[in-house]
């Protein structure tokens, strides 16, 4: 047993209304690669933010003991001084600046008002060599690929004299070869004595590099598996990740008849709007029937939202190819207005960013997507508008003193209801619900599920995108499984288990 470099003791972190971390304990030995695994929202990233000082000392409970002393980090630079460097999932590089400039951004070489460029680029080249990059440090970031950008991030971390390197989903935007190269680089660093923490969804990678694996679930550490003493396999980890019991969390749906196919998508391919060569959705085929809830399960970044938005009037992506059939008829929807007219609704996962106008009242938000129903030749009938919004408020049990309340003042669950009301008011036949229960409490979740049941009982079709396995299995009639832009499986909900869905994703990942 080596020396313990980092110990996080009884860490508890609460956000208003949510306990994100509950008494978490983590021990990392010097010179090991320690993996953190868990579902989305389990608390992995929060834990790392506590460690690096993004959530300052005092905003959480518990102790961080690093290199034998208790630490109080107030900001990121505090932890970086001690050699704890975090590399975030989202690359934090400025595309218009050179590799060298990026590497020493905020940490410039030379004097404060006289940057020493020779030293900057000289040092940068040295670190680039360490991560195996042959590019000159004067090359601009935008001119190198994402794989190399990720290596620059690591070189940047090394330049800060990292002793403990934290990598948050380092391979999420990389292809297989680049990922493998990165993992091998990690193993190389380990030989040189570096300590690393890796957060990853890709369990095959975790098994490949990790010495120890800690499983986080619902804000608590469930177990730590030592890969050298126990036989570790992916199913073994999955069991830890999803091992909660099913209770009566989903309202029963009975007597809803599933009718004929309502919407069909054939050979649907979408490219990234900026990096036009990257396929985000790859040859997807799916259909939805009347009265059916179809679940699309996939991890974050699998291309689910992109699929939904590209169907909804080409709101995402470029070079969209494929056929969309509504009630058997091939249809081209050029913009959201045409999609709404074709009786489609897309309820976004990002209700604050893409869904609601927070500075406007419930009344205004409710009618925004279907203004023509409450106005006459461009003049708003305020009475009608008021009535409509009150009706939906009552129907969906939105908790608010009045419909004149600004949406920004509501809780997440009530905001979600306003968003649902807005789209139900457009009288759609097909509703695509993207993460309809993200970030809302259990009670509100149950109410949203009831609304979904009411919708299909009224003969509508629901496509529910979710990264919560129990929810997908509990609510859907049929489930599509999506991974890296492709549909990698389809199963009836009655046949689905958490294990075989996860296995589906893992197999597809290996097949590449």
């Amino acid at each position, binding site marked *: 047993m080596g020396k313990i470099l980092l110990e996080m003791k009884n860490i508890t972190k609460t956000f208003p209304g949510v306990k994100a971390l509950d008494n978490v304990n983590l021990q990392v030995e010097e010179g090991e690669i320690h993996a953190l695994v868990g579902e989305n929202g389990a608390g992995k990233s929060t834990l790392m933010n506590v460690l690096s000082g993004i959530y300052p000392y005092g905003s959480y409970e518990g102790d961080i003991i690093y290199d034998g002393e208790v630490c109080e980090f107030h900001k990121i630079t505090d932890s970086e001084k001690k050699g704890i460097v975090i590399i975030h999932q989202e690359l934090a590089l400025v595309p218009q600046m050179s590799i060298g400039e990026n590497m020493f951004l905020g940490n410039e070489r030379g004097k404060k008002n006289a940057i020493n460029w020779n030293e900057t680029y000289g040092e940068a080249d040295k670190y680039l060599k360490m991560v195996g990059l042959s590019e000159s440090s004067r090359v601009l970031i935008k001119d190198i690929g994402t794989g190399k950008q990720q290596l620059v991030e690591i070189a940047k971390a090394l330049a800060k004299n990292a002793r403990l390197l934290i990598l948050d989903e380092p391979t999420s935007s990389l292809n297989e070869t680049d990922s493998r190269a990165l993992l091998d680089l990690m193993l190389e660093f380990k030989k040189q004595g570096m300590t690393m923490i890796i957060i990853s969804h890709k369990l095959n990678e975790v098994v490949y590099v990790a010495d120890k694996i800690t499983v986080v679930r619902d804000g608590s550490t469930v177990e730590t598996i030592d890969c050298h003493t126990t036989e570790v396999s992916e199913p073994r980890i999955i069991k830890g990740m999803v091992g909660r019991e099913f209770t009566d969390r989903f309202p029963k749906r009975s007597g809803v008849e599933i009718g004929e196919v309502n919407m069909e998508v054939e050979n649907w391919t979408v490219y990234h709007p900026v990096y036009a060569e990257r396929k985000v959705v790859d040859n997807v085929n799916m259909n939805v029937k009347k009265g059916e809830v179809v679940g699309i399960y996939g991890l974050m970044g699998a291309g689910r939202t992109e699929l939904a938005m590209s169907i*909804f*009037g080409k*709101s995402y992506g470029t070079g969209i190819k494929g056929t969309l059939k509504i009630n058997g008829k091939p249809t081209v929807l050029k*913009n*959201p*207005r045409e*999609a*709404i*007219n074709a009786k489609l609704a*897309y309820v*976004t996962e990002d209700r604050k*960013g*893409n*869904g*609601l*106008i*927070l*500075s*406007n009242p419930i009344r*205004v938000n409710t009618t*925004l*997507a279907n*203004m*023509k129903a409450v*106005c006459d030749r*461009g*003049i*708003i009938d*305020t*009475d009608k508008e*008021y009535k409509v919004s009150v009706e939906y408020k009552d129907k969906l049990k939105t908790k608010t003193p*009045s419909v004149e309340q600004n949406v*920004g003042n509501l809780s997440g669950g009530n905001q979600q209801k306003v968003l649902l009301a*807005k789209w139900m008011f457009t009288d759609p036949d097909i509703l695509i619900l993207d993460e309809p229960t993200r970030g809302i409490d259990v009670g509100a979740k149950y109410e949203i599920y009831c609304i979904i049941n009411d919708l299909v009982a009224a003969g509508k079709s629901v496509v529910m995108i979710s990264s919560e396995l129990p929810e997908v299995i509990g609510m859907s009639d049929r489930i599509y499984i999506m991974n890296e832009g492709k549909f990698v499986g389809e199963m009836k909900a009655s046949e689905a288990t958490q294990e075989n869905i996860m296995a589906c994703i893992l197999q597809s990942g290996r097949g590449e």
Partner: protein
Amino acid sequence: MNLKAMDILKKYTMVFALVLVTIFFYWQTGGKILLPQNVNNLISQNAYVFVLSAGMLLCILTGGNIDLAVGSVVCFVGGIGAVMMDKNLNVWFAVVVMIIGGLLVGAWQGFWIAYIKVPPFIATLAGMYAFRGLANVVLQGYAVGIRNETFLKVFGGGENCYVPDFLGGSSLNMTCMVVGIIVVVAYLAMVIVNRIDAKSKGYSVTPLFQELVKFVVIGAVILWIFYKLANYKGIPAALVWIAVVLLAYAYITTRTTMGRYLYAVGGNEKATRLSGIDPRKVYFFAYVNMGLMAGLAGILVAARQVGAQPTFGQGYEMDAIAACFIGGASAYGGEGNVFGMVIGAVLMGVINMGMSIMGIDANYQKVVKGIVVLVAIIFDVLSNKKKK
């Protein structure tokens, strides 16, 4: 109750500021600022500010976007009209050409901003140079006078730019007083009808006491203004235009779908697009409308100055922008209204006039104006921060 008082104070901050500033100048100028002639001048001199601000407000609502070109456009349009009338062309033909000229300028800028995504600041900065240049070309670098009596009377220029006194009064302009009373009665009727309607449908209404206070204050202010005007020469023609524009824009922003879209785009453009509304059309509308208002302002200014000259309208864009921001329009878009904008414009007007009467150096006047704008924006930014 205390909390409520705070809310009211916050909602009407600028109104209170206006009252305080007016009292300050009343005291400093020995009451001169509220002489009938000065009240009249406040309205006539600032007609262009109200009109331009109405256009500017719509642009600002779409996301804090401004139009720097309006000053040049005012000059351009005024120049076209002055030259046309100088050549003895029909006055109404000239007016129509001026309005269409404003609309075309708006469409030109709106196209680049909405469909090509040129940042509004840049597109209108280009317009500011280009239309100033064109105005000079039209005027050939000279001042051109307007002698057309009809034009001057209708648009409030020259000496006799007042609504004639049909009723005849010796010292007091009776028509003016009667109109003032009619306006107040109409306002009262509107309030009552609205209240009865809301009650019959079971909607919540503001407490009667609060409504009464509001009515008495607004009614008194209206009557007082008309009384002052009646003591001078009556209703300035410019006031008719201001009233029409302000009422129209109060209606557009609150009761029409396009008005709603302006707020929606400024509040959250992505959500608006996903709601099936094309934000490009909304931006385009805002700038075409700005062109229309610049055209109308060009007409009013040309009439008031009895002609056009190459330096007309310099800095007008800033007056309009300042009025909107002082009046509570958010620099990030999505918030603001016509009432606030009017208060902002009046506040600027009172400060300008008060300082002029006090004989403060024109350069210092600019400093004070600058500080007023900054304070208003700081207020906006801080109150937004608290919400987070």
